[in-house]
C-alpha cells in the first residue's frame, strides 16, 4: 500500500514559519502534484516526507504507521531530484546498483534486479556510460531506475523537469505518466509549473503560505479555484480579475456586491468584431490556434479570445457564459 497522511505539520527555518499546521492525505497509487510558487514550502514538505529533515512538530504517517522520527534510511522512499543527482563518478549500472548495495543484498540478487530495471527502462545500451554522457531523457530514466530498484513505498519528485527545454519536458512528462501507470505506486511530484501539474496529476494540491490551499483533480482547481491566487496561478494568458465597477462595465449587469472580485479566463471571454461594441482592441497576441485580444475596461487591460478577423483599434463586444465566471 502507499497511503501517506501528513498531520498538523509545522516547520521553521531561522524563526520563519515555512509550514504552518499543514494537513495532507495522499491516497494509494495516486499521482499527486504539489503546486506552488517558489519558496512556498513545497520542497520542504517533500524533504519532510522523505525524512531528509525533521519537522518542528506534527506527524507523518505511512499507511497509518508513524514515521515522523524515522531516518530517511528506514523509510524506503524514492526521491528524484531536480538535477537528478546521479553520481557522476559511477556508470549507469553502478548508479542503479548503489541503493541495492546499501541494503547489503547478495550479488546475484543485485544483478538480477539491476538487469530488470535496465531492460525495463531501455537503458541496456548505456549501462557502462557515465551520467555526463547521457541525454536529459536518459538521465531521468536512470534517476527513476535508481529510485525504482528498491521497490519504494512512495516516489517523490522535486521539479525534475523544470530545467529542461520545453520539447524534452513534454516528452518526459508523458514518459513519467506512463511509468506511473505501470508501477501503480504513489507519486508525489512538486512543481511550480502549472502545465506539468495539469498534465501529470491525478490530483493537484495547491500550496501557499505554508498550507495546502486547495486539493483536487486538476480541472477542479482550474475551473473552481478556492481563491484568486489559485485562479491566477493557472492558465495562460492569465485570468482576468475585475473589480465590481469594471465587471459592471464589461458585462453591463450590476455586481451583486461592490467588494467582490470577478474572475474570468481569457478563453471564456469571447470578443467579436462589432462596430457597435463598446471596447476597443489595444493589441493582439497571435497564438496560432487562437488569437487573444487585449482591451481596456476602465483603467484595466483585460484579455479575451478574439473571434473573426480583428485589427488594432477595432471595436469589439464581449460575451461570456455565467457558469464560467468565478466570484470571490
Amino acid at each position, binding site marked *: 500500500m502507499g497511503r501517506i497522511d501528513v498531520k498538523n505539520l509545522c516547520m521553521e527555518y*531561522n524563526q520563519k514559519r515555512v509550514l504552518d499546521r499543514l494537513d495532507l492525505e495522499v491516497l494509494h497509487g495516486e499521482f499527486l502534484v504539489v503546486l506552488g510558487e517558489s519558496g512556498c514550502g513545497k520542497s520542504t514538505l517533500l524533504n519532510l516526507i522523505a525524512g531528509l529533515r525533521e519537522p518542528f512538530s506534527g506527524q507523518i504517517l505511512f499507511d497509518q504507521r508513524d514515521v515522523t522520527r524515522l*531516518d530517511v534510511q528506514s523509510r524506503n522512499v524514492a526521491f528524484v531530484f531536480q538535477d537528478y543527482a546521479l553520481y557522476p563518478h559511477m556508470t549507469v549500472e553502478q548508479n542503479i546498483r548503489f541503493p541495492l548495495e546499501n541494503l547489503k543484498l547478495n550479488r546475484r540478487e543485485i544483478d538480477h534486479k539491476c538487469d530488470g530495471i535496465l531492460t525495463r527502462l531501455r537503458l541496456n545500451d548505456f549501462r557502462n556510460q557515465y551520467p555526463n554522457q547521457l541525454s536529459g531523457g536518459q538521465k531521468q530514466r536512470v534517476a527513476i531506475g535508481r529510485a525504482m530498484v528498491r521497490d519504494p513505498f512512495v516516489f517523490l519528485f522535486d521539479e525534475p523537469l523544470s530545467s529542461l527545454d520545453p520539447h524534452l519536458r513534454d516528452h518526459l512528462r508523458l514518459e513519467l505518466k506512463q511509468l506511473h501507470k505501470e508501477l501503480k505506486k504513489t507519486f508525489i511530484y512538486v512543481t511550480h509549473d502549472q502545465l506539468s501539474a495539469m498534465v501529470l496529476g491525478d490530483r493537484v494540491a495547491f500550496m501557499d503560505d505554508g498550507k495546502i490551499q486547495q486539493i483536487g483533480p486538476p480541472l477542479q482547481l482550474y475551473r473552481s479555484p478556492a481563491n484568486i491566487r489559485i485562479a491566477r496561478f493557472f492558465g495562460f494568458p492569465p485570468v482576468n480579475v475585475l473589480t465590481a465597477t469594471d465587471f459592471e462595465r464589461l458585462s453591463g449587469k450590476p455586481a451583486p456586491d461592490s467588494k467582490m472580485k470577478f474572475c474570468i479566463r481569457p478563453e471564456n471571454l469571447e470578443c467579436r468584431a462589432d462596430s457597435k461594441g463598446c471596447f476597443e482592441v489595444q493589441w493582439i497576441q497571435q497564438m496560432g490556434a487562437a488569437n487573444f485580444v487585449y482591451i481596456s475596461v476602465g483603467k484595466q487591460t483585460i484579455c479575451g479570445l478574439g473571434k473573426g478577423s480583428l485589427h488594432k483599434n477595432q471595436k469589439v463586444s464581449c460575451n461570456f457564459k455565467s457558469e464560467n465566471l468565478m466570484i470571490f
Partner: protein
Amino acid sequence: MKTEFKNVVIFLGPLLILPALFVIWPLIELMVLSLKHKVILFEIDRWAGLENYQYLLGKDARFWGALGNTLYFTVCSVGLELVLGLMFALYLRFGKESAWIKVILLLPWAIPNVVSARLWQWMLHPEVGIINHVLLTLGWINEPVLWLSDPTLALNAAILADIWKTTPLITLLLFAGLQRIPETILSAAKVDRTPPVRFLFYILLPQLNPMLMTAMILRGLDAFRVFDVIYVMTGGGPANSTETLSIYAYRTYFQSLQFGYGSSIALTQVILMLAMTWIIMNAFSSKWDRS
C-alpha cells in the same frame, strides 16, 4: 536525531581532538609559562605574575623594534607581492597564457625556505655574489652593495627574497581569480569602451576583490610569523635590524634560555595574530554559515 550526533562525532572528532591536544595544550602551557620566570637549565621556576608583560610592553625597546620590523616586513612584502602578482596575473590573463609558465612560477614557492634563503644569501654575497657582480658589471653601482650587512638594506633584502618566493603564488591565485570573472562582464566593458585604467579599477579589481582579500590575508598572516628566511639569511642582524617577533622569541628561548620571557613574546605574537584573524573574520562576515 541521535545518529546525526554520532556522525558528527565520528567525522569531526579526530579533527577537533588532534589540534586540541597539539595546539590548545601547548598554548595553555605557553600562557602559564609567560607568567613565570623560568630558566629550565638552571632550575629557576618562579611565579612572576604580569612582570614579564610589564617589561615587554613598557620597557623592552627590542620588542617594539622587532614588532616594527615584523610589521614592516609584512606590509612591504605583502604589498609588493600583491602589486607585482597582479601585474603578472593581468599579463597572463590578457596578454598571453601558457601552462609551462605556471610550472615555472610555482617552482620558487615549492622549494624549502631554508634552501631559498641560502640561495639568496649566496647570491647577495657582497663580494662573490652574482647580484653585485652583475650590477658592478653593468655599472649601476660603483662598489659592492652590502645587502645583508647594511642595517638599512638587510630587511629589504629579506623582503626581496620573500617576494621572489611568494609572488608567483599570488600571481597564480590572482590569475585564477581573473579567470573566474565572467567573460560577459569583460565583453560588456569592452562594448562600453571602458578606458584601461577605469577597466582595471572599476571592473577588474571589484570583481577580484575576494581573491585579493584572501591572498592578502593568508600571506599577511604567513609573513607575520616569518622565521626561516631571516634566520638563515641574517640571523636577525645587523644590529637587530632584521629581528622579527619570531626571531626574537626564538632567541629568547633557545639562546637566552628564558622560557618565561620567551613565552610572553610568543604569546603576544599569537594574540596579535588572533587579533588579525578576528578582524578578518568580521570583514568576511558569515561567509561560511549557511542561512
